[in-house]
């Protein structure tokens, strides 16, 4: 009897185990694995920094960075606010700018031929190289950083929206023409409603570029902001403070990106069930 039952027990266990594994696999993909990897990386960093006798100026251990973040919390926060504000402003302007320009170019062949090659040509310029000129043109205030940030972040939105507007199929356009719809009607009633998935993919690229634009602007000329604080800390060899600022930048960037993804989810739900 025992021998007969013996194989039954592992089989029950294996069912339980496979259930456990599938649960683990689910969370592994979603959260556990990336978090565990990052944690292992931080521990390795800590170990190398501490036991490798590396100068904190070169590589401060993560605990030191965290310490800096706690000690200088209010200072870092003070500099986080203008940076975040400028990022949001630049991103908020580049969205309608990119979408409107794409609409104009798809609506009017003339506008397309006049603008599109030039916009693409502009994108071929290493845009970071133009950043100092924005300071010359617009001064050292918010406007020059925001303008530069818009300048580099509107392009992916423009290209993605234009692709979305043009993704309407030929037969659909034939139907529209058979209904004697005007180009404007086609743009507003068919092309734009087809585009949200494209626009959001452009926005996800644009949001990271908007952040880069502001931080580069702060590197060049600013008396405030995380970019300024990173530059300041580096010049005083306070690597730990610089890294603390970078960590905050990551959090801000992640939050902004998360907002875009959340908006996308919301809009796509509305798009599907309106």
């Amino acid at each position, binding site marked *: 009897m025992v021998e007969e039952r013996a194989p039954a027990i592992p089989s029950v266990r294996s069912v339980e185990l496979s259930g456990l594994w599938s649960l683990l696999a689910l969370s592994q993909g979603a959260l556990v694995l990336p978090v565990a990897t990052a944690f292992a990386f931080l521990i390795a960093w800590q170990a190398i920094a501490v036991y490798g006798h590396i100068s904190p100026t070169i590589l401060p251990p993560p605990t030191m960075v965290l310490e800096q973040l706690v000690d200088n919390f209010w200072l870092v926060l003070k500099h986080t606010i203008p940076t975040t504000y400028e990022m949001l402003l630049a991103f908020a302007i580049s969205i309608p700018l990119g979408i409107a320009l794409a609409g104009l170019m798809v609506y009017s062949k003339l506008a397309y031929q006049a603008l599109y090659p030039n916009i693409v040509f502009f994108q071929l310029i290493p845009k970071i190289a133009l950043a100092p000129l924005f300071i010359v043109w617009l001064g050292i205030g918010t406007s020059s950083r925001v303008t530069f940030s818009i300048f580099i972040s509107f392009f992916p939105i423009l290209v993605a929206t234009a692709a979305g507007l043009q993704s309407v*199929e030929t*037969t*659909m356009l*034939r*139907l*529209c*023409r*058979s*209904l*004697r*719809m005007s180009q404007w*009607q086609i743009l507003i*009633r*068919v092309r734009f*409603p087809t585009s949200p998935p494209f626009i959001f993919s452009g926005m996800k690229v644009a949001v990271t570029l908007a952040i880069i634009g502001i931080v580069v602007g702060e590197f060049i000329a600013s008396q405030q902001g995380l970019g300024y604080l990173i530059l300041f800390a580096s010049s005083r060899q306070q690597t730990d403070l610089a890294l603390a600022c970078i960590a905050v930048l990551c959090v801000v960037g992640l939050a902004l990106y998360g907002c875009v993804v959340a908006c996308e989810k919301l809009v796509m739900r509305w*798009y*599907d*069930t*309106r």
Partner: protein
Amino acid sequence: MQAEISCHRVRKVFGKGATAFEAVTAATLSVEKGEFVCLLGPSGCGKSTLLMMIAGLEAVTEGTILAGGTPMIEPRAEIGIVFQDPTLLPWKTTLQNVLFPIEMMGRSRSAYVGRAMELLRLVHLDDAIHKRPRELSGGMRQRVSLCRALIADPSVLLMDEPFSALDAITRDDMNIVLLELWERYRKTVLFVTHSIREAVLLADRVLVMGRSPSQIIAEIKVPFPRPRDFAIGETAQFNELCAALRREIEIARGSEAATRH
């Protein structure tokens, strides 16, 4: 009696110079008011191009097309079109898709809701009026497309291989639905297909279009009384008509067919 649609030596050339391609050589045909005509031909014979010209969606290179006695130069409200793709707007419900032409024509939407519901009931979609296209099967989508073509009460219905993307069983269902709709509204229909049996089942008259030269090469009247159903498909006369049409198509395909078999 004046024909609802008439084409006289219609020619269509795409492109210019060395890359020019003649899609239609000289097509002459007419469709009477209330008549159901099928345009049958091998693929690439230019039948769809001809239909698009009749719809006013392609410019005519040479020849004339008259619809209701006046030259066809641009799309008209009194001509409804069903394409091979259902071409539904994915963010609109069945009912919204059917009413889309009304909205775009600037007519009062509420005046047509009743008609839309009636059409959807006739094609057995009354349970799906608030569903979106992705929730519908291919056949259901094409039925929505059919209702949309009929919503503005056009006098002519142009159909460009509307059922060719569907599986055989669904296609049979669609043929029955179309026959029922035609019995009800008696529109003038020009139906492009490459299915011989479909053409004989549906049409009052079948026109066979040839390839190079691309023109109408034969015309066969289908004498079956209406209303029709699939029972006529079993008759010897039906199969004789199909055989006759097949011979015409073989002639149309000419040497190419001879080498293949």
